[in-house]
């Protein structure tokens, strides 16, 4: 299969593509760093939407038009709406993390990143036609779709037919997720009057964990512990 593309492989590298590439990737890096540093949850959620949208733009330059479509609609649209509504129900600000608690995370991330950078040398060059990922099954789909599925969009053909079970599994996952959200939140709030009994003890307004954080009880608890 690699021989087939040998003739077309020496297409000159297009400089504008590289420029768009660098431009969009730098925006992505800036947005990702801003997400790490930002404390306002509204800002974090909106920047996450921006990140999805910019990556959708990048997908267009990488010929993945279907993915760009889905990422813009689902990643930048639905995800952002979901996170905004959850943020409205939860909190507006995140508390800053003390520096000493960031070192562990930083060490893990630097180690994992170094391991992955070490492996980068073995990856195929960007845009390589003859790389193993591009030479075999993907190009078989390209060659056979016109004959077997008879539609021009190969991504749709593979999604719906060649890998149809995969898509079915995806639908099962979405159904399970919807079921899970329903079970967690309910259609009607806590209309059944369900009460949690951790360790067999009944929690009332004063003994619930949330009560400890309200103004009246916070002052009492440390004193009670000191007395013991």
């Amino acid at each position, binding site marked *: 299969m690699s021989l*087939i593309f040998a003739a*077309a492989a020496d*297409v*000159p*590298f*297009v400089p504008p593509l590289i420029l768009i*590439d660098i431009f969009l*990737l730098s925006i992505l*890096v800036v947005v*990702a760093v801003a*997400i*790490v540093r930002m404390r306002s*949850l509204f800002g974090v*959620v909106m*920047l*996450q939407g921006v990140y999805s949208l910019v990556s959708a733009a990048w997908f267009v330059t*990488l*010929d*993945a038009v*279907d*993915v760009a479509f889905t*990422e813009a609609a*689902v990643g930048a649209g639905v*995800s952002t709406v*979901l*996170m905004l509504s959850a943020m409205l129900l939860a*909190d507006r600000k*995140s*508390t800053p993390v003390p520096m000493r*608690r960031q070192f562990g995370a930083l060490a893990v*991330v630097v180690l994992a*990143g170094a391991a*992955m950078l070490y492996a*980068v*040398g073995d*990856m195929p*060059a*960007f*845009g390589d036609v003859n790389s193993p*990922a591009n030479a075999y099954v993907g*190009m078989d789909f390209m*060659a056979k779709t*016109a*004959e077997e599925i*008879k539609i*021009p*969009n*190969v*991504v749709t053909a*593979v999604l719906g037919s060649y890998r149809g079970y995969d898509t079915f599994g995806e639908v099962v*996952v979405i159904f399970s*997720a*919807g079921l*899970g*959200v329903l079970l967690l*939140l309910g259609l009607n709030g806590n209309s059944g009057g369900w009460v949690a009994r951790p360790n067999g003890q009944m929690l009332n307004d004063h003994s619930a*964990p949330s009560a*400890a*954080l309200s103004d009246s009880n916070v002052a009492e*608890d440390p004193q009670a512990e000191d007395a013991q």
Partner: protein
Amino acid sequence: MPDIFSHFNYVVVIVLMMTGLYTVFASRNLIKKLAGLSVFQTSVFLLYITIGKVTGGQPPILIKDKSYGVDDEGQALLDGVVQVAAGKDSYIIGGPGTDILYSNPLPHVLILTAIVVGVATLSIGLALTVRIREVYETIEEDEIEAADFVYNLEGTAD
């Protein structure tokens, strides 16, 4: 030119991935953690799509070989254009002699599935966050752990 940038995308994508992973590890706020997870996930999509790109290629949507490739009798006007009988229409598939090159569709398909599954998991995580907020009145991990300790909800102490 190609040598300098041949692995540029991978390096930047790894940096982005690690930024998302760092947000997941370091932040104590559950919503921010989920935003970081989202960034991590999107960066993995970037990695896959980068691999599927073919230099000089075009989106994997077959071009109809009707208006300019063949005449009305189905006779090829261009030398070497591969024609495939597909009902009434025929499409140009990439091959020897064609100047058409398509990018690899397989990573696109995998990532399409992953995007939708990602939203499903995100919604579960957000529902858990909202439920935790209802009980604990906070979504900061430190305060949740403190409340668990004070009320012995983990059942470890006597």
